[in-house]
């Protein structure tokens, strides 16, 4: 992870994955994180490592008062500060020096995602206008974060599956910067009897993507030639342990979908992130948009750095 990524807000869970009974484990790169909801419903994030004997806190449980209890010897921590609050059976002295704490991280919840920042003091991210899309999923792909994004840029067929949609190699707009994001629009075909893409004069659908240059968080809009929005997706790829990328996504099917192929999008499981990538196809995939992506990203981050200085 580069330095920008180390201080970024990462969507490491979907809201419904985090509950108030059993904590869950997630990670940003090699940093294991435990998440749970306290008794006010606020999501808390600590290092998933008990400072007592290094057991994962995610194997423990959430107490009625919203504190987390390690499953090994039962030490109890409070989520907001990470401080140790109780050691079971210790009748006297339950005041602990400030050193007795687990490392805490910044947490922010919006649009049905739980965002965590490794820097606990980081300012919360700009409020997003994201509404919470009802459909959602989590997929782990054995591909690095950058490689996954590059595949998304160069051939979405390798990483996404949308019912009835074939992604063509032809772009309406090549990758460019728009309001701090990497934006492009790709032509798509319905998987029907039609001219092969290289000979097709018109394409019925396009996929617009807008990607955050640091986290790769991508808003996807599928629309037809009349600008009806058929599908909206938020994709949140996060670098996880061992070079795996975990992608959480949320999606919503558009209301107005003329044409029967578009109507079929209303069926269950019309959108999926592929859990694995065809290595043979990936190896020979020619870089195209991803090349632009590299340059654009470098320029944008550079500009930010200069502006900050």
């Amino acid at each position, binding site marked *: 992870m580069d330095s920008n990524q180390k201080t970024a807000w990462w969507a490491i869970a979907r809201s419904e994955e985090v509950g108030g009974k059993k904590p869950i484990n997630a990670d940003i790169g090699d940093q294991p994180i435990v998440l749970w909801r306290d008794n006010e419903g606020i999501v808390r994030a600590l290092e998933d490592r008990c400072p007592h004997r290094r057991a994962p806190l995610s194997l423990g449980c959430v107490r009625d008062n919203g504190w987390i209890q390690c499953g090994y010897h039962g030490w109890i921590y409070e989520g907001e500060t990470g401080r140790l609050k109780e*050691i079971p*059976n210790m009748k006297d002295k339950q005041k602990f020096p400030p050193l007795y704490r687990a490392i805490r991280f910044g947490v922010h919840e919006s649009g049905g995602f739980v965002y965590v920042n490794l820097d606990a003091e980081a300012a919360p991210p700009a409020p997003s206008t994201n509404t919470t899309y009802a459909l959602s999923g989590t997929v782990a792909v054995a591909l690095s974060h950058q490689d996954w994004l590059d595949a998304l840029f160069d051939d979405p067929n390798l990483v996404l599956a949308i019912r009835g949609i074939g992604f063509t190699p032809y772009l309406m707009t090549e990758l460019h910067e728009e309001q701090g994001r990497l934006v492009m629009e790709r032509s798509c075909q319905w998987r029907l009897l039609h001219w092969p893409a290289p000979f097709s004069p018109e394409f019925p659908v396009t996929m617009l993507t807008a990607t955050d240059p640091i986290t790769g968080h991508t808003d996807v809009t599928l629309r037809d030639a009349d600008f009806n929005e058929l599908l909206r997706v938020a994709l949140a790829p996060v670098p996880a342990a061992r070079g795996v990328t975990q992608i959480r996504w949320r999606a919503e099917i558009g209301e107005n979908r003329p044409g029967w192929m578009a109507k079929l999008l209303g069926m269950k499981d019309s959108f999926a992130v592929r859990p694995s990538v065809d290595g043979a196809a990936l190896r020979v995939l020619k870089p195209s948009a991803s090349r632009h992506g590299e340059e654009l990203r470098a320029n944008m981050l550079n500009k930010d750095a200069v502006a900050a200085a």
Partner: protein
Amino acid sequence: MLDVPHRPTESDHEPDHSSAPIAPSIMNGSVNSWVPHDIVMKDTWFPLAHGFAVGKKPVRRAIYSHPYYLWRENGVAVASEFHPNERRTGEKSPYTNAAGHYPVMERYGYVWGWFGRPEAADPAHLPSLPFLPPNGNLPKYLLGTVRFDCSAPLSLENLIDLTHADFLHANVVGDEKSESEDVEVFTTSETITMVRTCKGKSVAPVMKFFSGIKTPVQDIRQVIHIYLRSHCAIAYGRFEPGDDVPLFHPCVPETRDRTRLDYTMNTSNAGFMFRHIMPRASYVVSRQDSSMTSPQSPRYMREEKRRDLHSPFDSAGQKYRSLMLDLAKRQAVGDFDYRDNVSDDCSDLIGLRKELFRY
């Protein structure tokens, strides 16, 4: 009785212990930032296999990745570095004699192999296990094998730390509620002993079901006695009302990150149900322990800047770490002497009810 059939009179070449690089984690190691992964104990007996498991055909075991092939010749156990069918390509190690054999002895129903300088092998360094018949011969249902996905010292740290039982093993040993509790720790340079006495503790569910204990509470005296070098432990529980449960709990370091436990739980004095069921509880309990020690283990493989926190309940565990580090430091500079005896009868130390175990 104490006799080592394959003890070489002299080793054919002196192991060069001094030139091995000494892990900084050992030399600078402190109790709260120890690296158990780097601790390799030498000049000690390890219980390699239950006696019944060794026959004519070689079985394979390992100590810190060193191969131990065990078989019997005319009924006598042999521990060899090489399989009889093996085409030898490399040099033999300094831990075996010219024939490639390790010192080996058989006692308490186990085949014990020596790891270290062969010329130092001595039955006087065999741990005392007074609740096991010296010639073995216990029924097989009292014996078993479980494995831990962690380094052996972490397994033993888990064993000597009794507070985790209330959380991890509550369904087997009962919850944390007791009227009074007292913990004492005794040490020598080769052993650590913890004695915990609880008055009025809720009855362990296993005893409720299989020993028919009707009272709501019982008094418990629990002893953990660890032989540091051999990673062998005794876990002895006396329950009133209830049974005596002595467990031989050896944590054999097959590699620095995996542990083999060929246990014997001598419940032969208990009632029929309990006697048969209790030794099998190890399968449940060991998985519960493993759920914590296995994620712990990789976090103790490298030196870390952060120091572990501890509470007064950890006194035995802290002491265990410091004694292990002391021994490892001494060995690192070539001092392998036993300053305390390990084979003297430890019955009194562990408070064994000798009338139940007369051998």
